[in-house]
C-alpha cells in the first residue's frame, strides 16, 4: 500500500500564494488508509488554510472534494470535473500518481501536491507504517527468507551484513533499527536453510524495471 505524509503548511502556503480560490482534492484509497489524504484530512487542511488566511483582506475560498481513486481518470473527472472551472488552482492530497493524473486532465490549471509520497509499506501498528518493498522489479525475497534486503538493509546489500553492524545486531545507521541481514540469518537458521545466505549472489540487475517503469498486461 502506498504511504504518504502531509507537507508542512508553510510549504503549501508558499505554493498557493497568489491564488485565491482553491480546490482541495483528497483520495479515498491508499492515502485514506494511511491517514494522509482522505476526506478527514481534506477537512483538516481546508480548515487550516481558511484559518491561516482569515487575517488577510479577501481570504481564501476553498472547495473540498474527495475522489474515489485519484489515479483513475474517470473517477477524477467524475468527482472534480464540475468543480475545477470554479477555482484557480488545485491542491491534490493524492499520492504522486494522483497529483499527476489530475495535472494531466486539467492542464489549464496549476496542480500542487499537498503530500510527500514516501514508500510502499505496511502498518507497524495502528497509525504507524514501515517501508517493506522498494518496487525494484526483481524480487529477491525467495533467497532472503522473506525479508527484503534491498529496502530493509540501509545499503541494499545482497551479500550482507556489512562490517558496520552494531552490538546486538542493530544497523549501522540507527541503534534502534534491526540489521536486516541479522534478521535474515536468524530466520534462515530457524528454518535450517542457512545455505541460502551462504550462497554468493551476482550484482543485481538494477535496470530490471527501466525507469519510469511501464507494465502492459499480456492481453491489453
Amino acid at each position, binding site marked *: 500500500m502506498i504511504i504518504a505524509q502531509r507537507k508542512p503548511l508553510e510549504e503549501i502556503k508558499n505554493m498557493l500564494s497568489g491564488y485565491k480560490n482553491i480546490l482541495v482534492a483528497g483520495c479515498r484509497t491508499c492515502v485514506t488508509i494511511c491517514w494522509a489524504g482522505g476526506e478527514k484530512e481534506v477537512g483538516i487542511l481546508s480548515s487550516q488554510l481558511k484559518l491561516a488566511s482569515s487575517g488577510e483582506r479577501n481570504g481564501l475560498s476553498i472547495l473540498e472534494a474527495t475522489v474515489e481513486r485519484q489515479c483513475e481518470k474517470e473517477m477524477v473527472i467524475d468527482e472534480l470535473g464540475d468543480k475545477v472551472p470554479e477555482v484557480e488552482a488545485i491542491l491534490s492530497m493524492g499520492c504522486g500518481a494522483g497529483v499527476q493524473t489530475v495535472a494531466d486532465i486539467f492542464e489549464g490549471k496549476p496542480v500542487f501536491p499537498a503530500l510527500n509520497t514516501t514508500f510502499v509499506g505496511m502498518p507497524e501498528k495502528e497509525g504507524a507504517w514501515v517501508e517493506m518493498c522498494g518496487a525494484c522489479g526483481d524480487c529477491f525475497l525467495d533467497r532472503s527468507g522473506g525479508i527484503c534486503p534491498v529496502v530493509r538493509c540501509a*545499503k541494499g*546489500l545482497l551479500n*550482507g*551484513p*556489512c562490517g558496520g553492524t552494531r*552490538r546486538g545486531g542493530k544497523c549501522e545507521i540507527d541503534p534502534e533499527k534491526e*540489521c536486516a541481514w541479522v534478521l535474515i540469518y536468524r530466520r534462515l537458521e530457524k528454518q535450517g536453510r542457512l545455505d541460502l545466505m*551462504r550462497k*554468493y549472489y551476482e550484482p543485481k540487475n538494477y535496470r530490471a524495471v527501466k525507469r519510469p517503469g511501464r507494465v502492459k498486461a499480456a492481453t491489453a
Partner: protein
Amino acid sequence: MAIRFREALRTKDFIVTAEAGPVKGANTQKMLEHIELLKGRVDALNVTDNQSSVMRYPSLGTCLLIKEHGGEPILQITCRDRNRLAIQADLLFAYSRGVDNVLCLTGDSIDVGDHREAKPVFDLDSVQLIYLVHTLNSGKDMAGSELDGGVDFCIGASATPSADPIGPQLVKFQKKLDAGVDFIQTQAIYDLEELKGFMEHARKMDKRVKILAGIVLLVGAKMAAFMNENVPGIFVPQHFIDELAQAPKGTGLSKGIEIAGRLIREIREKKICDGVHIMAIGREEKVPEILEAAGL
C-alpha cells in the same frame, strides 16, 4: 624502493601496514610528510576512500603520491560512491600507474558522513567487488569484453571479529574467502579473546590467507566513547575507556599509544594472527611511536 606488498605477504612472518588518511582539500603537503615518515617503516600504506563517508582528497591520488615517493600503497575502494563502470575504470587507471594492491570494502553509509543528502550508489557490495577484481585479473571486464592490457591485483578485504552476533559475519567472511583474497585487514580489535575466537573460525575456513588485526589508536576516553556510538564497526570495551579516563589530564594520547603497543606486542608474541594494520586516524605521525611501544 619498498619491496612489493605481495612479496612481503609471502616472505615476512609478521606484516605491519598503516593507514594514511587523505586531507579535505588539495594541499598534499601534510600527506607527503606522513608518506616520508611511514613509507620505510611499514610493509604497505592503506589510503582510505572518503572514510566515514566524509568527502576528502581521493584515495587513488594519494596512492600515486606514495608510489612516486617509493612507498607501497594499498588502494581502498568502497561501493558507496561509484557504480561498476567507474570502479572498473579506476582500477585500470590505478594498475597502469603501478598501484596493484586493492582493499575491497562495502563502505560506510551516507547517513554517517557529512553529505547526508547525497544519493548512495552501492551498485556492488564488497564480495561482488572482489569477484569483479578477479574478473579484471582474468583479462575481461564485467560485461565479458576482452581488456587491451590486463591487470594483476593483490586483493584484500576486511572483517569484523568483534561483531555481535558473530554468525552472520562469519557467513560473509566465508563468502569473501570463497571469492579469493590474498590478505584480510580487520576492523578495530580491543578484545584479544574475541580475536582468538575469530581466528579459530578463520583458520578452519582457510589456512593460507594472511590476516592483519586492525589497531585503532585511542586518544582519550571521550573519543573512545564517541567512536563506540558513531563510528560503525568499532567497539571499545569499557575497561579501556576507564583506563583512558584515569590517565592524568593531557596524557590520554600517550596512554592510547601504550595500549596500542601492548595489543600489538601480545598479538605478535602469541602469534594470534599474521600481523597488524595500524589505523591512527588523523594522527599518522604517532605511528612510529606505536611501533616502538610494540617493540618493532
